[in-house]
C-alpha cells in the first residue's frame, strides 16, 4: 500500500489529473450541480494546484484507508471466538511499532513538500494589476477600486438581491436559480489580470470567499489582509461570507463578474462618472419615496422593515428619541455611527444624497411624522 502511494506521489500530477477527470467530468460536469461531491479547481492556476494537492492527499487517504480497514475487516471476519480460535499472546513488537511510526512520518514529509510550495505561491500577492479594497459590513460588502497612480477611485456596496419573499418564514415565492447567491451589484474584474484583494472589516469578522477564484481571507477590523487571483476564464462566480458575523451571516453573498479587459475599462469609466452625489434639492415626498427603498436595502437588516428593530439587540427607530429629536444628532449617528455598538459609520458607505433620503424616510415613516426633509446638502455641510 505504501508502495502504491509512493508511486502515486511520483506521478502525482498525471495520476491526480486522471482521477480528477473521472471525478469531475463524470458525475459532476457542472460545478454548481446539486450532486457535487468534490472541490472544484475553479478558473485559476493556483486553484488547479490546490485542487491537485487536495486530490493527492485524498488518494493517499484512500490508500491508507483501504490498507488499514482491509486488515481490520480481515481480523473481524477471521479472528473471532466463533471460529474456535485460542487468542494469541503477543503484545508488542519493536520492529513493527517503529515501522508504523516511521512510514507515516515519511508519507507526511512527502505531502509537506508540495504543500509548502503551493502555500508560498498563495502568499505571493506582489505585482498586481488591479487593487480592490474589500470591506465587510454586517451584512454586505463594500468594494473600493484603488488607483495605482493617485487618480480617481470609486466604491459601491454589494448586497443580497434575493427578495425576502423567497426565504423568510412562510415565504411562498418560488426560489430563483441563484437563490441566496445573487447581489444587486457584482464585483467586476478583468480576465487574465492579477487582481489583489485587500480585505478588511468595519465591524465584526467576516471572510471573503469565492471558491472558483481560489480566494478566502478573513476580514478583520483593524487589519488589512491580502489575497489575489488571476481568473483565466470570463464568467460569473459566486461565493459567500465564510466567518460567522451575526444574524444575517448566511445572507451576504459575493458575486464576481470576470469580463474582458476592454469591457472592464468601459465599466470603470462608467462607474467613475456615475459615482458623484446628486446635490439638488428634493421635495419631502421624493425623499421619502427613494428613502424607503434605500432604507429597506441598507438598514432593515437590523432596524427591521417596520422600524421596530429587534428588542434587546437592535434599537427601534419607530418612536425613537433619535428619529424624533434633533436632526443634526440623527445625521451624526448615521454618518459617524455609534462607537461601541453595531451601528457603523454610514458616511463612508453611502452617498450623501442617499443618506439624506434614508434619514428623511426614518423621520417620516411608521408614525414618525416630523415633516423634516433632510437634503443632500445638509449631509455635505454636516461633514464639513
Amino acid at each position, binding site marked *: 500500500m505504501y508502495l502504491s502511494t509512493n508511486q502515486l506521489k511520483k506521478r502525482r500530477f498525471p495520476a491526480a489529473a486522471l482521477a480528477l477527470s473521472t471525478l469531475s467530468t463524470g458525475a459532476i460536469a457542472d460545478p454548481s*450541480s*446539486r450532486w*457535487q461531491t468534490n472541490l*472544484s479547481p475553479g478558473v485559476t492556476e493556483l486553484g488547479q*494546484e*490546490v485542487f491537485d494537492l487536495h486530490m493527492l*492527499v485524498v488518494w493517499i*487517504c484512500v490508500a491508507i*484507508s483501504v490498507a488499514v480497514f482491509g*486488515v*481490520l475487516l480481515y*481480523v*473481524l471476519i477471521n*479472528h*473471532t*471466538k*466463533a471460529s474456535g480460535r485460542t*487468542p*494469541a*499472546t503477543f*503484545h*508488542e513488537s519493536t520492529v513493527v*511499532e517503529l515501522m*508504523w511510526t516511521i512510514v507515516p512520518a515519511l508519507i*507526511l514529509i512527502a505531502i*509537506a513538500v508540495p*504543500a509548502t510550495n*503551493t*502555500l508560498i505561491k*498563495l*502568499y505571493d500577492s506582489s505585482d498586481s494589476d488591479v487593487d480592490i479594497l474589500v470591506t465587510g459590513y454586517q451584512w454586505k460588502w463594500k468594494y473600493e477600486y484603488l488607483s495605482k497612480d493617485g487618480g480617481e477611485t470609486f466604491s459601491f456596496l454589494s448586497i443580497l438581491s434575493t427578495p425576502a419573499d*423567497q*426565504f423568510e418564514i412562510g415565504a411562498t415565492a418560488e*426560489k430563483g436559480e441563484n437563490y*441566496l447567491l445573487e447581489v444587486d451589484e457584482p464585483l467586476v474584474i478583468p480576465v487574465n489580470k492579477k487582481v489583489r484583494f485587500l480585505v478588511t472589516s468595519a465591524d*465584526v469578522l467576516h*471572510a471573503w470567499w469565492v*471558491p472558483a477564484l*481560489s480566494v*478566502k*481571507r*478573513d476580514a478583520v477590523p*483593524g*487589519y488589512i*489582509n*491580502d489575497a489575489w487571483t488571476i481568473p483565466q476564464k470570463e464568467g460569473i462566480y459566486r461565493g*459567500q461570507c465564510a466567518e*460567522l*458575523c*451575526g444574524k*444575517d*451571516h*448566511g*445572507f451576504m453573498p459575493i458575486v464576481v463578474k470576470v469580463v474582458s479587459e476592454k469591457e472592464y475599462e468601459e465599466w470603470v469609466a462608467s462607474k467613475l462618472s456615475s459615482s458623484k452625489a446628486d446635490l439638488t434639492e428634493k421635495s419631502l415626498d421624493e425623499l421619502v419615496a427613494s428613502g424607503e427603498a434605500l432604507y429597506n436595502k441598507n438598514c432593515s437588516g437590523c432596524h427591521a422593515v417596520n422600524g421596530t428593530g*429587534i*428588542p*434587546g*439587540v437592535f434599537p427601534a427607530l419607530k418612536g425613537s428619541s433619535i428619529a424624533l429629536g434633533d436632526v443634526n444628532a440623527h445625521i451624526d449617528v448615521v454618518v459617524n455611527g455609534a*462607537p461601541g455598538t*453595531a451601528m457603523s459609520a454610514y458616511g463612508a458607505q453611502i452617498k450623501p444624497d442617499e443618506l439624506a433620503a434614508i434619514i428623511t424616510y426614518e423621520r417620516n415613516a411608521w408614525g414618525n411624522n416630523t415633516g423634516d426633509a433632510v437634503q443632500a446638502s445638509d449631509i455635505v455641510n454636516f461633514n464639513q
Partner: protein
Amino acid sequence: MSEHHGPATGIQRWLYATNHKDIGTMYLWFSFAMFFLGGSFAMVIRAELFQPGLQLVEPAFFNQMTTMHGLIMVFGAVMPAFVGLANWMVPLMIGAPDMALPRMNNLSFWILPFAFAMLVSTFFMEGGAPAFGWTFYAPLSTTYAPPSVTFFIFAVHLLGASSIMGSINIIVTVMNLRAPGMTYMKLPLFVWTWVITAFLLIAAMPVLAGAVTMMLTDIHFGTSFFSAAGGGDPVMFQHIFWFFGHPEVYIIILPAFGVVSEIIPTFSRKRLFGYSSMVYATASIAFLSFIVWAHHMYTTGMPLAGELFFMYATMLIAVPTGVKVFNWIATMFGGALTFETPMLFCIAFVFLFTLGGLTGVMLSLAPVDFAYHDSYFVVAHFHYTMVAGAIFSMSAAVYYWLPKWSGKMYNETMGKVHFWVAFIGFNLTFFPQHFVGLAGMPRRIPDYALQFADFNMMSSIGAFIYGFAQLLFLYNVVQTIRKGKVNTDEKTWEGAEGLEWTVPSPAPFHTFSTPPTVK
C-alpha cells in the same frame, strides 16, 4: 469494612455526597441530561436545514442554537461524562478507596448544575442567548453581543473552576492512592489518558478564563483587548481561544482513547498491543496539542513562516495518532473476538475516528485548508472525531461498566439495535457534509443555495435517526437499572482484566478499604 457506614438517605445522599461512586453517578446522569438538551438544539438546526428557505426559526435564533449546541455538548455533555467515568473507575482501577479530595469532588460537581442553569437562562433574557458560535470570536462576542453574554462569561468561569478542581483531584488520587505494586507503567490505559487529560485541563482552562475575563472588561470596563478601534486586536482573541481550544479537543478525545484501550483487549481476549507506546503516544499528542493552535486560523492573515510552522506541527500529530489506531488493530489481530455492544461501539470508533483523523490530515495542509476552512467539510471532520470518537466511546463505556455499576445486565439485542441505529444515523448525517463542504457550503448558515438541498435533506434525516438512537440508549439504561437481569459476577466479561473486576457487582458503596496488592 464494618466500621464504614452506608450512604445517607434521601436528598442528603446526593447534596452532601463525598463518595466517588455517588458523585460519578451524578456526573453521568447530569451529562446525559445535557446530552439530550444539546441534542435537541441539534434537532432544531437540522430541522431548519431540512430544506432551503427559512421554515422554523429566525436566523438570530438559529445562531443561538448552533452556539448553545456546541457549548452544551462540549462543556455539559462530553466533559462531565468523562469526569463521571473517571470518578467511578479511577479509584476502582488503581485499588483506591475513594478519590483523594472527596469534598472538593462534591464542589466540582455541584458547580455544574448552577453554571448550566445560568447559561441556559440566557434564552429567556432580552436579546436571547449567546449567538456568536461556541468559539465566541470577538468582537461579535463583545461589542456586538447580546447583553446575556455576561452570564455566559460567568458560566464559563464556573465550568473552568469545576474542571480544574476535578483535574487536581484525579492527579492527586493517581499519584497518592495507587495500591501497592501498581506502578505507573502498570496503570490501566484509561487512568493514564485521564492523568494526561487532567494536566491538559489545568494548563488550558485558565487560558479560557483569561479570554472571557478580557471580554468582560472590554464589555463593561472600557478596555480594548479585542477592539481594534481602541488599539486592541481581534486576532489575539483567536490565538488565546485556540491556545485553550486545541488542547480542549484532546481533553475530549484522550479519555475516549483510554476507554477504547480498555474494551478492545477484553473482547479480543488478548492483552493491549504496545502498552508503553500507547502511553508515549498519548503524552506526545498532549504535548503537540499546545503547539498547533493556529491551524484553526490559517485564513486570518498570519505570516508565511507562522503558517508553515503550524502546518508542520499539525501534520506531526498524525504520527502518534496513527500509532494508537495501529495498536488497537494489532490488539484485535490474532485475538478471539466477540461482538458485544461495547465492542461494536469500539470497532466503530476505530473505523470512524480514523476517517476523522484522515480528514484532519487534509485540513492540516494550509494551502488546501484555504478551500476547506469554515465550510461544512470542517463540520463533518470534527463530528467524526467528536461524536464517533467521544460519544461512541462513552456509549461503549456505559454498556461495558453498567453491569458493574448497577449489578444488572443490559439486554444485548437492544444494545445492538441502539448501536446499529446510531451507526447508520451518524454516517447518514455527517458523511454527506463532506460533500456539501467541498462543494462550497459555509458552516453556521441557517439557509443555503439550492445546489446543497439534497445532501442537506439526507443529513437531516440521518440526524433524526441518530437522535432517535439516543432515545433507545436512554431506554436501555433505564430498563437495565429497573428490570435488567441480575448480574452478580465480579467479572462480567470473560476476557476482562483489571482491579475493577475483582470487586462485587454491583460495586458496594465502599471498595478497597484494604488496598489490594498488584503483582
